[in-house]
């Protein structure tokens, strides 16, 4: 079959089972776009290439498949960079195809030329500059294989214009990809596994730290069995939410800088940490000198480079949790740790008493109440996509997940502007599910042009804007750590409801707690997209995320939730 490079791109995308490409055309990728309508692949035209990368990422996280973004050379390609780095940090499988100037012009500062393989070297799992159309098909196969296998990540293919135009005999490459320098599935060292089991079986105060890797392995049920057999409490990383049911008595919720006080205390007091598919991010550990000082550490991860990187492990195992968890489970003896559980329960009940949700309403709308209402109205059943900042931490705390649902948030890179485009990708991946984008007023305005994509694609994404008229998390740091000097954090905002109405999207503004539930119900009843602006308390105890481990402090040195100054009428009620 004679095919041009442009045609081979689509042939190979079809072979990889790609249903949708998020992109934005331009001069150097025009030849590839020219063939698009000959193939059964949906193209979603974004408003800015960053949106294409985040949408592909959101699609990948909601579907478990490889997301695909396409852009032209130069500025089109550099606009993808933030989205590629976001996917890299959160191990999201993605393939980005960028146009490039013709091979004879590369390196001459040609119009719209940027050295994309150079720029993305440290933020891709791998990248390719295709210089010969003969190699294109096998490169595309390799790219998808690398993106999805092992610890997933983004792969970029830079495609010069003349390679798109060149013709060749297209022979689909073999399914199996063999790369001598790439072995995704690490062998499990049986002896190490035995040592891990010994440490686990002799532990008295065990804590499991469950991360993104558990979710990606799909072995959440095995984790539940393991935790119950060990009688270990489970703390979750931000991206690990959903790996263990949050209403389970053994679940401590999120750990780290804005983790539950009980989770952080348990980590600090534990005599065994079993870390699964997580990487001891600095937002998880607090100061390392005082991190979990009494514990032995067993660390299991698919990426050897994560072991002993931050926290030295007593037993470090390179392995795919798909196999390791079950092998480990078989070696674990049933145990119970009554005294330990009592202490953990005591910490937990203290946290609940201080929780703003369990305190009497003072008539002000606070963000935790917004998230709690969203959870109640959606019965915890929506796919939640967040932006970055205060609302993100509140969503992590108050939108409890009881099953391994997609929970889509920019964890590692902390990319503001992520929510709306990622929610577009998630909705396309899961057309029958209810998708909520939750964003702050700062982050939303970084990518709100994707409202255009939303209406063009007619997607029923619901948007909850948590508006405190500040870059809230930065303002919180300024209030607590920078002498209360608010520099460059106050935002003069547009009328958001009128803004979305210009796109034909119905919008509501909620300013009082009493109206929240009814408006959420109304938004949910819409057939298409819907938007709610929640005007929330912006400062002080009602406007800050607590608990908080200040930067440089140890995990147990938290700024706790403020004590309620009024009578604790609601403390008898347990928060889920």
């Amino acid at each position, binding site marked *: 079959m004679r095919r041009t490079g442009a045609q081979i791109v689509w042939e190979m995308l079809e072979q990889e089972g790609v249903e949708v490409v998020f992109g934005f055309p331009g001069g150097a990728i025009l030849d590839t776009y020219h063939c698009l309508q000959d193939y059964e692949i949906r193209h979603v035209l974004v408003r800015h290439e960053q949106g294409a990368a985040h949408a592909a990422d959101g699609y990948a996280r909601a579907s478990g498949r490889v997301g695909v973004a396409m852009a032209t050379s130069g500025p089109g390609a550099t606009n993808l960079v933030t989205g590629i780095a976001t996917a890299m940090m959160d191990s999201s499988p993605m393939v980005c195809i960028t146009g490039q100037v013709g091979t004879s012009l590369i390196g001459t500062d040609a119009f719209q030329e940027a050295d994309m*393989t*150079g720029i993305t*070297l*440290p933020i891709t*799992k*791998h990248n390719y*500059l295709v210089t010969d159309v003969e190699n294109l098909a096998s490169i595309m196969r390799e790219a998808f294989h*690398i993106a999805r296998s092992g610890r997933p990540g983004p792969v970029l293919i830079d495609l010069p214009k003349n390679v798109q135009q060149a013709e060749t005999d297209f022979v689909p490459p073999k399914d199996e990809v063999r*790369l*001598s*320098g*790439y072995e995704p599935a690490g062998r499990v060292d049986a002896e190490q596994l035995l040592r891990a089991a010994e440490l686990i079986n002799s532990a008295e105060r065990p804590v499991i730290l469950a991360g993104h890797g558990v979710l990606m392995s799909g072995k959440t049920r095995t984790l539940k069995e393991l935790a119950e057999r060990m009688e270990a409490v489970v703390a979750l990383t931000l991206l690990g939410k959903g790996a263990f049911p949050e209403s389970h008595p053994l679940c401590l919720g999120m750990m780290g800088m804005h983790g539950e006080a009980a989770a952080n205390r348990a980590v600090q007091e534990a005599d065994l940490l079993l870390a699964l598919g997580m990487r001891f991010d600095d937002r998880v550990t607090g100061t390392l000198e005082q991190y979990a000082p009494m514990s032995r550490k067993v660390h299991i991860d698919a*990426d*050897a*480079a994560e*072991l*002993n*990187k931050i926290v030295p492990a007593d037993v470090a195992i390179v392995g795919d949790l798909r196999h390791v968890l079950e092998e480990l489970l078989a070696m674990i003896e049933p145990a119970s740790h009554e005294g330990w559980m009592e202490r953990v329960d005591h910490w937990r009940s203290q946290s609940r008493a201080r929780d703003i949700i369990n305190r009497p309403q003072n008539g002000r709308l606070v963000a935790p109440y917004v998230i709690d209402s969203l959870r109640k109205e959606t019965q915890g059943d929506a796919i939640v996509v967040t932006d970055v900042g205060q609302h993100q931490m509140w969503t992590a705390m108050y939108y409890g997940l009881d099953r391994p649902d997609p929970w889509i948030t920019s964890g590692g890179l902390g990319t503001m502007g992520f929510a709306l485009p990622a929610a577009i990708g998630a909705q396309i991946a899961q057309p029958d599910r209810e998708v909520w984008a939750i964003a702050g007023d700062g982050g939303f305005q970084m990518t709100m042009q994707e409202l255009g994509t939303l209406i063009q694609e007619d997607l029923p994404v619901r948007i909850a804007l948590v508006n405190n008229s500040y870059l809230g998390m930065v303002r919180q740091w300024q209030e607590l750590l920078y002498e209360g000097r608010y520099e460059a954090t106050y935002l003069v905002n547009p009328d958001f409801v009128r803004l979305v109405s210009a796109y034909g999207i119905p919008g509501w503004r909620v300013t009082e707690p009493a109206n929240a539930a009814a408006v959420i119900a109304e938004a949910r009843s819409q057939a298409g997209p819907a938007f709610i602006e929640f005007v929330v308390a912006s400062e002080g105890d009602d406007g800050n995320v607590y608990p908080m481990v200040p930067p440089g402090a140890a995990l147990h040195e938290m700024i706790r939730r403020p004590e309620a100054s009024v009578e604790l009428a609601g403390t008898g009620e347990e928060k889920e």
Partner: protein
Amino acid sequence: MSRTLIALVEDKPGVLARVAGLLRRRAFNIESLTVGRTQEPGISRMTIVVDSDRTDAEKVLQNLNKLVNVIDVEDVTERALVARNLALIKVQVNGGSRAEVMQIVDSFRGRVVDVGLDTIMIEATGNEEKVEGLVQVLQAFGIVEMVRGGRVAMVRGGQPQ
């Protein structure tokens, strides 16, 4: 302390940039880096000498291993090695000193590879100490120009790296 890493890599454009990029990101100072072909077509071998302690070298090694184009990489610092350096040294000479310089070169098992009217060029091979020793002695005569290759190293014994 300096550590010696040996990496087998695919012989493709950009691979050196990937390896160097990782070292740069960790702020490792590269003391020397040599690349050349191996007995197997398509595979190149790098000998990388970095200023680092063992723990940091181990971390960078793990990351090098993740590069798709890196087939294998090992920290050979603590293994029994043959390590060699090459230097070309151009030395100022006159009628009086020429014989003396040649004698010194001979005792270091170096070779004279070019003789000019008032300079001679010397080739020296050996471990760093030996080459460094020769350079120091020759400084007294006046070194006009010098080029040194980086370290190349191979583990002793029958096992290939």
